[in-house]
């Protein structure tokens, strides 16, 4: 199945793009997608990532469906 992953803030810096389409085995959770990404981009694992699935705040155990949009972001402090 395919998942569209969006990166915000520091996560975009780490991955190098702001959007990525990933293919994953079913069933897949948001957490396993993050693990998959962290293997290629170890710096990702340093961050407390926040997750939104289809524009709704979610946690890492949430199971994804084909075509879901997964957004990863971190807190930012600038002002």
């Amino acid at each position, binding site marked *: 199945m395919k998942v569209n992953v969006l990166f*915000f*803030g*520091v996560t975009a810096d780490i991955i190098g793009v*702001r959007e990525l389409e990933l293919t994953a085995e079913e069933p897949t959770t948001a957490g396993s997608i993050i693990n998959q990404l962290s293997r290629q981009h170890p710096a990702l694992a*340093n*961050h*407390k990532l*926040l997750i*939104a699935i289809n*524009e*709704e*705040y979610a946690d890492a155990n949430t199971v994804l469906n084909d075509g879901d949009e997964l*957004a990863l*972001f*971190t*807190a*930012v*402090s*600038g*002002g």
Partner: protein
Amino acid sequence: MSVTIVIPTPLRQFAGGNSEVEVSAATAGDALRELTTEHGELRKHLYNDQDKLRNFINVYVGDEDIRHLDGPATVVKDGETIMIVPSIAGGSAVGTRTFLSADLDADKQSRVPTELSNDEIARYSRHLILPEVGLEGQKKLKNARVLTIGTGGLGSPLGLYLAAAGVGTIGVVDFDVVDSSNLQRQIIHGTKDVGRSKIESARDRLQDINPHTKVEAFETRLTSENALELFKEFDVIVDGTDNFPTRYLVNDASVLTGKPNVYGSIFRFEGQASVFWAEKGACYRCLYPEPPPPGLVPSCAEGGVLGVLPGIVGTIQANEVIKVILGAEGILLNRLLLFDAWKMTFRQLKLRKDPECPLCGDNPTIKELIDYEQFCGLKDPVEAKPDLEEITVTELKALFDSGADFQLIDVREPHEFEIARIPTAKLIPLGEVVNRICEIKGAKTTVVQCKGGVRSAKAIQYLKDAGFEGRLINLKGGIRAWSNEVDPSVPRY
């Protein structure tokens, strides 16, 4: 008859924290009796031993003091508003305000029923003809007390629009001084203000925009010691700070005092905004239970920020503040707005109050303000890496002058290297140091440098972790210190 009694700030603590209480009564006296029956603690503040209204308590029906009408027997109409106004002379008896640096005077403590002058009617005419604002709404704005934390990138547009919109009292908290590097985005300050205190500069500008707005300036750092007392005096809190400890402090103090916290935050080209209001929805901790590890998310000073970005996010905050005051529906509650100025996209994420939230959840464990520096991991001594060798810029200069054989590695980004550099420095950006480790000669002493000394310390850690065995020395204060102390001809950025 259903009437609304408006409770002044100092008395709200005795009325369950309510700013307004609705009661059913035919006269002003009955209405106050109803109120004190519902909130027994208020009785001794309103009535003396002879059961008479205390002489420093003024009661207004409509726009008139009931002493000029029929006293407690003054008839109230259905839907009418009764205001309790502690008088100026006696104000301190009901509400002590001990906040130190506030330049308050007594008349700001009480809320006299608001009327708009002809001047104000002309000034706010574009609001007044909006049914959603109108005269009532404009009076609400005039009565409102909004506290803005920070007069930086977010606080600038926010303050300007709140003053322009006719918010009656704007509190501003800042302790910083205007620097020329602020002017790219902090539009409340001008070139002539460089070197002045931000609070003074902001006050002048706000007063110039709207002399009807009272500006209460607090030239202080917001701390766990002063936040609650300060927040209690305001209706809406706006978070325009630039660091995580203060953001958690603002959130916690807002929740503990029951105030809405209108939040905005920025990073390079991206902004976030929301209204956190524990009584009605999620708080900041429901979204971000824990702060990121220190140093992982760059600040604006480290990561840069598009100047117009805080302008957009700050005006979104101003918009939400005004809606909160007007009691509008559709405030940014339980939603996190994510704005990307580079892609020009707005997205919003649905948030929910977290029942497990340690602050506003079902079983809160945080009941008072804590040490936020510690909470955010900033008190763990950075010098926890005892093996980090450092030199100052003057020592580096001496090294150059002595003709010592060493290499200087600059771990900033190429665009920063373009702006300014220290002679002989070789550029290897932080993200590449490990991959390009072979370009650093292990046999030579290596001084590592960045803009301020943080990234270079990280680079040294990365190199050591990667097995680099040569001598690595961190340049304290980076190229900024070099420019300040050794060679002023190197531009500061």
